[in-house]
């Protein structure tokens, strides 16, 4: 079963854009889509608003003993952020599968660049949500932050790890029938080390300290998650 014919064609021109610009193109496309539909942002904001409001009513500024306030508030804050991520961030890949655009994307750009672009978009989205949620949370619960700078460091580093892992898992579960359940079930054990360190670092920030050990753990986690996501991108996203 073999046959052949022959002739010649012009060589392909070399690639014009480097990987960073191509990943940025994917990120910009997701941002443009989000600006037109606002599905992911709206779901994230509404989830965050609902959760913060409920927590503030249930716990309230006077519902917690002073010595437990920092611990409980830190844990509640990261629980809210975790479920925010689970609510909105998977859409980056799920939307491509649901609308059938995944094949076109796979045809022109590698899985690792797609993942990089979508991670960047999700990270920016997460930071935007955090920038609104954290002050609202602190105000409603009258939670005084000892070191706002330390909190920003924790949010920036923790949010990066959360975005990388959430985006990678979104690629992994995008073709599954029970993708939402699968996402939460898989993401919980994978994100647990990050969340525990982030909570510990947030408690320290509330007390006015920059906790070096949990911050180092978060940085290491971010690095490991980035490497793993890059190496496994094609296995997660391609057929």
């Amino acid at each position, binding site marked *: 079963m*073999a*046959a052949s014919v*022959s002739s010649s064609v012009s060589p392909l021109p070399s690639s014009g854009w480097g990987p960073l610009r191509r990943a940025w193109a994917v990120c910009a496309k997701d941002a443009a*889509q989000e600006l037109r539909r606002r599905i992911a942002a709206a779901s994230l904001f509404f989830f965050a608003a609902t959760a913060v409001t409920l927590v503030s009513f249930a716990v309230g500024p006077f519902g917690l003993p002073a010595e437990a306030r920092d611990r409980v508030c830190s844990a509640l804050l990261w629980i809210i952020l975790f479920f925010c991520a689970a609510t909105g961030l998977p859409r980056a890949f799920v939307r491509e599968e649901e609308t059938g*655009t995944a094949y076109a994307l796979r045809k*022109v750009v590698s899985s690792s660049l797609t993942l990089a672009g979508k991670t960047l978009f999700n990270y920016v989205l997460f930071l935007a949500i955090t920038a609104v949620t954290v002050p609202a949370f602190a105000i409603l619960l009258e939670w005084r932050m000892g070191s706002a700078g330390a909190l920003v460091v924790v949010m920036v580093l923790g949010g990066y790890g959360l975005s990388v892992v959430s985006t990678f898992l979104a690629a992994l579960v995008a073709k599954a029938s029970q993708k939402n359940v699968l996402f939460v079930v898989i993401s919980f054990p994978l994100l647990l080390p990050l969340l525990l360190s982030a909570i510990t670092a947030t408690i320290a920030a509330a007390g006015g300290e920059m906790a070096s050990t949990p911050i180092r753990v978060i940085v290491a986690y971010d690095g490991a998650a980035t490497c793993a996501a890059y190496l496994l991108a094609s296995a997660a996203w391609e*057929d």
Partner: protein
Amino acid sequence: MLATTLEARELSKAFAGPPLFTKLSFRAESGFLAVRGRNGSGKTTLLKILASLAHASSGSVSVRRGDAELAGDERRLAVGWAGPDLAFYEDFTAVENLRFFGRAGGRPAGEAAIAQRLDDVGLSGAFDRRVGAFSTGMKQRLKIAFSLLFDPPILLLDEPMIGLDADGRAIVEKAVGAQRRAGLVVLASNDSRDFLEPDQTIELGDRETADVRR
């Protein structure tokens, strides 16, 4: 001027159940390769495998330029593809879609080049219309424009005439004619009218059989 070659070696593909085809081998550098077969014979799956959009159960596909095997982006962009599963961002216009895919592919096309691509497939009047408002035939034309976006030496077309009117069919026939002169076109279809004197034919028949002939 190096020849770009598409070669399949002992390709087999099975989902749950009996295989679609086994040990299918062929090699083509230019001209027109037709892929025939009844519904469910594996034409779409074969073209996806050739386009690196699906994995074969066994066997391999290589794309070579001269003696060098292409990989990664070079291979991805050297093989154009359009098929029934291809879809576009419906919130974007046709121009925005092609502009994005050009940038994501690392070869951003200028506005004039994109306009020319769309004009070539008869979509010059729909530059600013959202793809979500396109008819089936218009989307099919956009698929052809997408498949040709990077001027690939190898073009894979899966049922390219679906939903097209007479003008649309003429556009595809013209594109196929140009491509077979410049490189290789592989076209899969159920409709014998779609095959314009192929240089080679792959006949995907009953389970596990495939025939390649010139």
